[in-house]
């Protein structure tokens, strides 16, 4: 322990430089990302609610350009199982269901687990692969914190209806790498 402490004294903090173009602020909408009150018990997370602007179910038009299946009909409940991508492990399932009052809820199962890469993002899309960059066809739901890569979770999705076809990805956005994927189909 003494050696580690001494090395800590020798160690130097790295300096970070933000190299993003001035007009780029990331693809996560400000109103997305907070887990719903149902997940208030998860450690380290602030539960969001429509009242505090968290989920943003009523925050303007959907971000996803994919056409809904049928805007007048209730969205079906879709389910899928995660598979690892690119050598990363993943487990568990995901459900995309209509939310009370409109919009969609994305629910991760109790046995959900994904690889421990920094800041993995949950993405709903009609594309079967994301490549190295998100597009207008993709909806970034939230970034999973360190305590969120395992276990259940429920998140609002700022879409009126699921895309067709519907996929959910766990995605490392800066890196541009998919770590998990689930194809959603009607239950």
């Amino acid at each position, binding site marked *: 322990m003494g050696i580690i402490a001494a090395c800590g004294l020798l160690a130097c903090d*790295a300096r970070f430089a*933000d190299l993003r173009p001035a007009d780029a602020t*990331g693809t996560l909408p400000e109103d997305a990302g907070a887990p719903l009150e149902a997940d208030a018990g998860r450690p380290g997370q602030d539960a969001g609610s429509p009242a505090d602007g968290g989920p943003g179910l009523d925050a303007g038009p959907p971000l996803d350009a994919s056409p809904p299946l049928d805007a007048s009909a209730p969205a079906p409940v879709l389910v899928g199982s995660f598979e690892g991508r690119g050598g990363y492990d993943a487990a568990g399932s995901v459900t995309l269901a209509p939310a009370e009052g409109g919009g969609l809820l994305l629910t991760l199962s109790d046995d959900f687990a994904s690889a421990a890469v*920094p800041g993995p993002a949950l993405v709903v899309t009609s594309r079967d692969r994301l490549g190295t960059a998100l597009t207008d066809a993709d909806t970034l739901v939230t970034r999973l914190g360190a305590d969120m890569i395992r276990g259940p979770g429920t998140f609002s999705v700022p879409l009126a209806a699921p895309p067709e076809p519907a996929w959910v990805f766990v995605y490392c*956005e800066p890196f541009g790498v998919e770590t998990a994927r689930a194809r959603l189909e009607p239950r």
Partner: protein
Amino acid sequence: MRRLPSTTAAALAVAVLASSLAAPTRAEAQAWIREPGSAFASLAYRVIRADRFYAPDGDTLPINDFRQHTLALYGEVGLVDRWLMATLDGELLRRSVLVDQGATTGLGDLRLGLWTGLLEAPFRLSLGLQVGLPTGDPSPEADGDPLSQTTADLLPTGDGEVDVALKLAAGHGFGWRRVQQFVQAELGYVLRTTPRDTPASLPPPTDIRDQLAYRAETGLRIDRPFLERFWWIVRVAGLLVVQDRGADTSSGAPRIAGLGDGVEYLSIGVEVLAELGAGFGLSFGVDGAAYARNVPAAPAWKLGLTWQR
């Protein structure tokens, strides 16, 4: 079996002994314990430009453009004739860049070593103990939005842990006609420990799995005017994880910088060392991976300045 005349046998023995004392004077050569006061140092700039990455399963994945620049220092100094030599190996500067996203710059990790000679003939054999010090930053901080912090988390400048490596190095130098040649091989076990810190966006640190480190190298020099200034070197080197952790989805934190748990590679490299005079030399080389996990998938180019006394 016909026995060699005793004079011939003695001459051969002397030749073998003398040749085994020859060393690649301008390369990393831990098998040869330097005499007290003798020293070698190199300062090398290394660059990697990658748009692919060796994933945990060994396949390559496309990634956003990545650059890594390092300024690496290596030094050897003899302490006790035949018995003790000290080495220093580390990155004085490590800059990792995700193009159009973010970059980290800082001191990398350092490694101190002590080597002792076990054999001088019929070949050189030495035993080394190296301690890796976590002088780099395993969890750089970004003063910005969460995406900036995520980018910073991907680009540590150090692995954050003390590691200890026990290595055996064997080497032999010999000559035939107008060619001088050396071969050396190194095998070591690297005991990895638990990082003192990981980024907040990752689970708490766990042990990094131990590794086997290996290297085999050969070089030659032609004893002709002008050509005698150059050593031509070919090497293979690698790291191999020796513990299987199975399909634990929270194990490790594979990151683009090639640090941390689960890093493996088998690299093949070539290098030319040129003597400039007055103890100085220039080196130029490139290493590429034949197989790897959790490192950028691109060649590493190196330009170095060497000095020897």
